[in-house]
């Protein structure tokens, strides 16, 4: 034993243990996120429980099992729970999502196994996905079509048909509101600014006043017309309703325009569920969030993240590449070059929040404020560029990711054998020509790698964005159909901030948690994919130049 210790072999095993632990942690984490994120879209069975609590009161509970844990009996007893029969050392308890948020005070409930009398999975339980108050669990009793109650016949088909109609009408109303009504509002605001601008410049003549008043009148008329259509659509969508019996046995009337989807979970086979899973994923990616971001999709966040990151890439690439070329091709080896190199390394190590502070003070307040003073005096005191926005976020992250691009590009440049450059120069090309025709094309995969890494880093960065442009709910996307189509000054939504906001700031954290896992999984998979691409590009590159060197 002593000899074994002396050989150092146990310590080697310990270091091996450290690697194993790190690997488990990494893979475990990714698996955890993947599992939780993907299972969010899988519909589980909906159970009906008959309960009898410690005081002998019976009740019925309908819902999904959300979580389960074993609790020491002693802890429950010290909390004041009395058991008739000692249930053993631990008691299993279930966290049940009961939905029907407007009916119960808490839509999540802990139930002790000892209280459960029976459990069943009735086939005709319906899960109604709604625009408000979360899911509804219950038994459909009848549908009301245009005031007529229909109890018999194929209730499910009828319900589906009516939901589809209501959803279509609501969508139409929504697109009308977002599209044409939104445009009129935008035009009205533009008119107001125009008149204010004339006023500031002292050019507001009566003729111009009249002109503006006329166009305003025209817009208002159009607005009233559209508003009428809009309300008509809304009333049409609210024509029908469904009658459902909830777990207390009460029959409720739910207007059809609040319902988005109806599923009979317990009546679904594996493939039906799989189909539903894909539909769920699709909806999550493509639809807008609802109910303070705790339900619905994350489309605006995906859009905002991608848009901001692309904008950042456009800014960072030229600067990063030029800086790398300067350092590697032009700069003489000396104290200044060394200082720039240390500066680059340091830029990479500066905490991201410091960039956020800098971005807020310098870009938003100083640069943005000056732009407002010079070009948008008519909108003051409400800021145009002088408040956090997507352009400032992109600029801030561009500085943040600059070192990534520089380091990666420089590595690529240093891998190009000097014989290639010398060959080009010997054939009479100038240095600039060598650079453009030989060096940059050969280094382009490395530049690509740097760019991908920068994008991956930027997509996951949240702290600075909280100061320079991200909001929990942006009313409009940075790109829309109103002139000038790209609105760089607008605030935007971001996947990473969405995770923080929904996970920590939302009123119903428990209900929102699966959604946060799903968002996390989305973000992680994008970033891991980007990184793997970068790594494979880099490896490919190394192989390529290794053959060149020989």
């Amino acid at each position, binding site marked *: 034993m002593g000899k074994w210790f002396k050989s150092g072999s146990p310590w080697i095993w310990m270091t091996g243990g450290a690697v194993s632990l790190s690997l*488990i942690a990494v893979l475990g984490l990714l698996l955890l996120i993947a599992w939780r994120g993907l299972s969010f879209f899988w519909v589980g069975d909906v159970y009906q429980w008959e309960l009898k609590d410690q005081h002998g009161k019976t009740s019925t509970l309908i819902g999904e099992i959300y979580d389960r844990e074993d609790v020491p009996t002693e802890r429950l007893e010290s909390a004041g729970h009395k058991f008739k029969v000692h249930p053993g050392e631990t008691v299993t308890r279930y966290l049940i999502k009961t939905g029907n948020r407007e009916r119960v005070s808490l839509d999540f409930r802990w139930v002790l196994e000892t209280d459960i009398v029976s459990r069943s999975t009735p086939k005709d339980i319906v899960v109604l996905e709604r625009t408000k108050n979360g899911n509804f669990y219950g038994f459909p009793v009848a549908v009301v079509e245009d005031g007529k109650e229909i109890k018999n016949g194929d209730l499910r088909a009828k319900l589906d048909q009516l939901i589809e109609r209501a959803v279509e009408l609501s969508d139409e109303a929504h697109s009308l509101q977002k599209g044409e009504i939104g445009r009129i509002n935008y035009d009205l605001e533009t008119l107001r600014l125009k008149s204010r601008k004339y006023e500031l410049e002292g050019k507001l003549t009566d003729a111009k006043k009249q002109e503006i008043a006329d166009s305003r009148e025209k817009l208002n008329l159009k607005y009233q017309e559209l508003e009428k259509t809009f309300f008509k659509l809304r009333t049409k969508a609210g024509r029908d309703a469904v009658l459902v019996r909830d777990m207390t046995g009460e029959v409720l009337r739910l207007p059809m325009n609040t319902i988005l989807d109806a599923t009979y979970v317990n009546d679904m086979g594996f493939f039906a569920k799989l189909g539903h899973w894909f539909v769920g994923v699709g909806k999550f990616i493509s639809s807008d969030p609802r109910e303070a971001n705790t339900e619905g999709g994350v489309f605006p966040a995906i859009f905002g993240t991608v848009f901001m990151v692309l904008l950042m890439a456009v800014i960072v690439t030229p600067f990063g590449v030029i800086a790398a070329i300067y350092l590697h091709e032009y700069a003489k080896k000396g104290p200044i070059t060394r200082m720039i190199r240390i500066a680059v390394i340091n830029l990479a190590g500066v905490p991201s929040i410091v960039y956020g502070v800098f971005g807020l003070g*310098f870009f938003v307040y100083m640069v943005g404020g000056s732009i407002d003073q010079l070009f948008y005096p008519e909108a003051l005191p409400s800021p145009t560029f002088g408040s956090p926005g997507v352009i400032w976020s992109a600029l801030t992250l561009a500085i943040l990711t600059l070192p990534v691009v520089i380091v990666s590009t420089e590595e690529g440049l240093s891998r190009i054998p000097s014989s290639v450059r010398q060959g080009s120069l010997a054939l009479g090309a100038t*240095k600039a020509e060598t650079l453009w025709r030989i060096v940059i094309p050969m280094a382009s995969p490395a530049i690509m790698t740097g760019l991908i890494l920068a994008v991956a880093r930027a997509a996951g960065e949240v702290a600075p964005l909280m100061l320079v442009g991200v909001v929990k709910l942006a009313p409009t996307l940075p790109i829309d159909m109103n002139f000038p189509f790209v609105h760089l000054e607008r605030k935007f939504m971001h996947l990473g901030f969405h995770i923080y906001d929904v996970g920590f700031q939302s009123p119903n954290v428990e209900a929102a948690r699966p959604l946060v896992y799903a968002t996390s999984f989305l973000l992680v998979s994008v970033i891991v994919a980007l990184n793997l691409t970068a790594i494979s590009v880099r490896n490919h590159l190394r192989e390529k130049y290794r053959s060149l060197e020989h």
Partner: protein
Amino acid sequence: MESQVIPPDSKSLLLRGVTSRRTIKDKATQIGVSIGGTMVFVALLLIFFYLLYVIKPVFDSATLTPANTIAELSDKGVSLMVGSDEQNEVVYRVTQTGEVQFYNAASGKQVLDFKPKLPAGVQVVSSSRSMPDQQMFALGLSNGEALLLSIKFGVSYPNNVRTIAPEVSYPAGETPLLVSESGEPIEHISFAYNPSKISILFQNADKQFVLKRFEGEENMITEEVEWVAEESKLEDTPRHISKALITPYQRQLMLMSDDKVFVYDIRYMDETSLFQVINLERANTHVTDIQLLSGASSIMVSYDSGEIEQYFQVASEKGRLYQLIRNFDNVPPVSSMATEFFRKSFVVGSPDGTLTLLYTTSHRELLSESFNIGKTQAMGFNPRSDGLVVETAGKLHLFKVNNPHPEVSWSALWEKVWYEGYPEPKFVWQSTSGSDDFEAKLSLMPLAFGTMKAAFYAMLFAVPLAIAGAIYTAYFMSGKVRSVVKPTIEIMEALPTVILGFLAGLWLAPLFEENLPGIVILLILLPTSVLASAFGWSKLPRNWKNRLPETYQELMLIPVICFVGWFSFAISPSIEIAFFGGDMRSYITNDLGIPFDQRNAMVVGIAMGFAVIPTIFSIAEDAIFSVPRHLSNGSLALGATQWQTLTRVVLLTASPGIFSAVMMGLGRAVGETMIVLMATGNTAIMDWSVFEGMRTLAANIAVEMPESAIGSSHYRVLFLAAFVLFVFTFFFNTIAEVVRQRLRDKYSSL
């Protein structure tokens, strides 16, 4: 081929043109690239200097600029109070007999001369003033009545021109309040007022001090306030007093007599009592004035030797007693003193015309400047604290004050400060509050401490794991496995920290809270199980070992660790029942008396450790891996074991690289924001306990920056916090980089 047939002269022409264009292009590229490259350096400098640019005003001194002098005062007596409106357009002065003279600040012309309405044949025998923010004064009359007056400025915009209309109103009604029923003259009046309660103190004909309190009751029908009076004669009062102050909430009364302050409890009229005598006697000097600081918690005492002392109540065994908190020395001799409306700044004036601006909390002398104005008699700030009116004999001087950031100083940021109402000097970060006269507590120490604490626990978790992992991966692992393992761990570096923070806060923290015993067992079992399996492996028969591929030896530990992890959590409830009464958390809080937060340093340590492991691992692994093979081969050839070679040769050679890795990791841990923001309670406490949270500099910036007003002291202090982070990480990263470059040079020479 055709190009060869170009005539010689045109060819040379072409060549010349092309050459010059090519040269220009070449030059342009060179210049462009050089400028672009230097831009990176400029960017770094820009960040550095921009942060400094925002921070600098915080440490600047205040300035006082003489704006105007009004030299036509009707008398040369000392005013009761002086001041001006918010815009510094109208200056006023209240004489001891209650006349108010308003002057236009720019022209110096009198705009209004107000004389209080007194009953016929009645004179003013005494007067006193309120705290500055009320802008009120009271007159004691010869017929036993008292009159309360208040100065107001109405602002209107006729024809878009701002016009300020000064007026004097009677907050308690135009009819004087009957204070002394027997009609004695009201000598030595002092008062405190709020809309439902008035307290008036005076000295009656028997030289006794009487406190009169009026409680206002609104008549439901006429909506007029009717005042119900109560009276109390104070016992044991000194005979001669030089100043009397009543706090605005009418809880305390202070009488100054012969360098002593007698403090009375006057909360209840039927039990008024003397509860403390503050002795202000000093050798060779006398008290010139006492004043209440804004918020009325502190008494400021000035001496004619040029010393100022601050007293406030501190809870002690004998109750909440006034205590000397801090003093300002080396101030010129004090002839008058004025406090600001809402902040803790005050100004003192000397007989030779020197004005000194001071701030209590930051213990800062903001300005001391001599003006050729003669002896200062009375002073008053305007409500925005950007104007100061100074009265000298027969003259009023208006000064523009620029004093935006008095609350910040080196001592306020980094040293213990005794805040009002605290039992002792403390490090406190509390930047905002609901009230106007809130004393901002801007100590960065708790935040710096929190940053260090978070980084410490993160490093405690990450350094051993990352370095041990790096050693194994670089030195013992087969190349094939290494090429998979290294990128896998490195990809963690790209994982957004918001996800780590979210998991730490919402998954790990509750998990730990539920399974505390399991965590302890895991900590013990993990190393032992690794050692046990190593021992078991060494005792395994050789032909068994040969069956398993040697390449994957290291991966055999993975199932072992997984099993140990599962086992620890599985037996956790049983252990909890057996030893901790079924609930270890309540055992820790109740039986051991250790505060326990769900989101604590342990959770942060692990989550943030996780974020820095890849950084440390990657750099340390590179350093160990690039140790030249001939060094270790030589050592092995001389008979050293693998482990000896590793510790004595390889690690020693790579140690600068490992050091640099740790520094990089530390830099990352210090600046990490999202994990700390989400996985701690963000309370600014100073406690090393692993079961409690912290608030770090970075998280604090993220929380408070969006809410701070541009240009406020708070905003600038947050920039300072960012600057501290910047300098800190800059320092560690530079060390790491320099060490790494040295190492690289060393390797290349080997």
